[in-house]
């Protein structure tokens, strides 16, 4: 009976790992650069609605967000619909005008991204839009998710 002889590898085979830290560092830098840490803490609940015919906004630095939705109250409760800009809830709708006007002065190509909860009513949104018109920030964007088909 013939014996099967195990072939011996001629030399030790090892994957060189000396370049691994370099690769890892490269990945690390990539993610460090692309990471945008969440800038605002949401004080209102925003569940975006879905739509099909949407466009992407590539220039993120032009964006300024306005959040509209039911206020988050302690104890997992939801309150009335409120408007949040940056980090604060805006109680006085009329203040949006000056706020947005200042932002427009800093960034003349400002796009206001309206992130509105799907269950809110149109009334509050239209008040905000009216203020945006007064502040001459005409470019707006209703933030939506892509419809999952």
């Amino acid at each position, binding site marked *: 009976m013939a014996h099967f002889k195990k072939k011996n590898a001629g030399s030790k085979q090892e994957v060189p790992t000396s370049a*691994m*830290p370099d690769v*890892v*560092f490269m*990945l*690390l830098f990539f*993610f*460090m650069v*692309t*990471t*945008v*840490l*969440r800038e605002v803490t949401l004080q209102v609940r925003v569940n975006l*609605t879905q*739509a*099909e*015919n*949407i*466009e*992407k*906004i*590539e220039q*993120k630095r032009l*964006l300024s967000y306005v959040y509209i939705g039911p206020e988050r109250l302690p104890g997992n409760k939801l309150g009335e619909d409120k408007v949040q800009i940056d980090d604060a809830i805006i109680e006085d709708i009329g203040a949006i005008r000056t706020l947005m006007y200042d932002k427009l002065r800093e960034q003349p190509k400002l*796009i206001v*991204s309206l992130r*509105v*909860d*799907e*269950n*809110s*009513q*149109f*009334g509050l*949104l*239209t008040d905000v*839009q*009216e203020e*945006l*018109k*007064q502040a*001459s*920030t*005409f*470019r*707006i*964007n*209703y*933030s*939506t*998710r*892509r419809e999952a088909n």
Partner: protein
Amino acid sequence: MLLKKPKRESAEINGSSMADIAFLLLIFFLVTTTINVDTGIGLVLPPPLEDDVEPPPIKERNLMNILVNQEGRIVMDEEFYQLGEVKARLIEFIKNPTADPNLAETPDLAIVSIRTQRETPYRIYVDMLDEVMGAYKDLRDEASRANYGVPYGALEEDSPQQEQVKDMYPKKISIAEPNE
């Protein structure tokens, strides 16, 4: 007498754990990164009306009034429509293939006016707007395919071709203030 100092061992920082540290950081940034592109429906608001300036007259036939009421029912020019029917109706209104005297004269004169009530749910409103955008997208796609053989999205941004298709079907959407 000088005592010869013992030869020092060469000082070296152990670099073998550097990879681990880098991995740790990498995992941290991997987890915290959100590569989310903002998507949404873009719109340009009209400038506020001056008190003493009358809005320009618009021929009734060029205006499509869409009303979304608080129950989410859609009324287009005094007729009820389902959400699914809106797009087809709009395309018919904008293109007006049969030269109907009640529909838009030419596509570039057509104006879509969306009116809502304060209690209208936002979701219904966005669905409605989505349909309007869809109608315009279909029309522009069609025009672009007929003239240049490519869909509208494939045309170069700000190219004369794109401008021409845009001029054929300008998106004229007016968001009216809700009536109480």
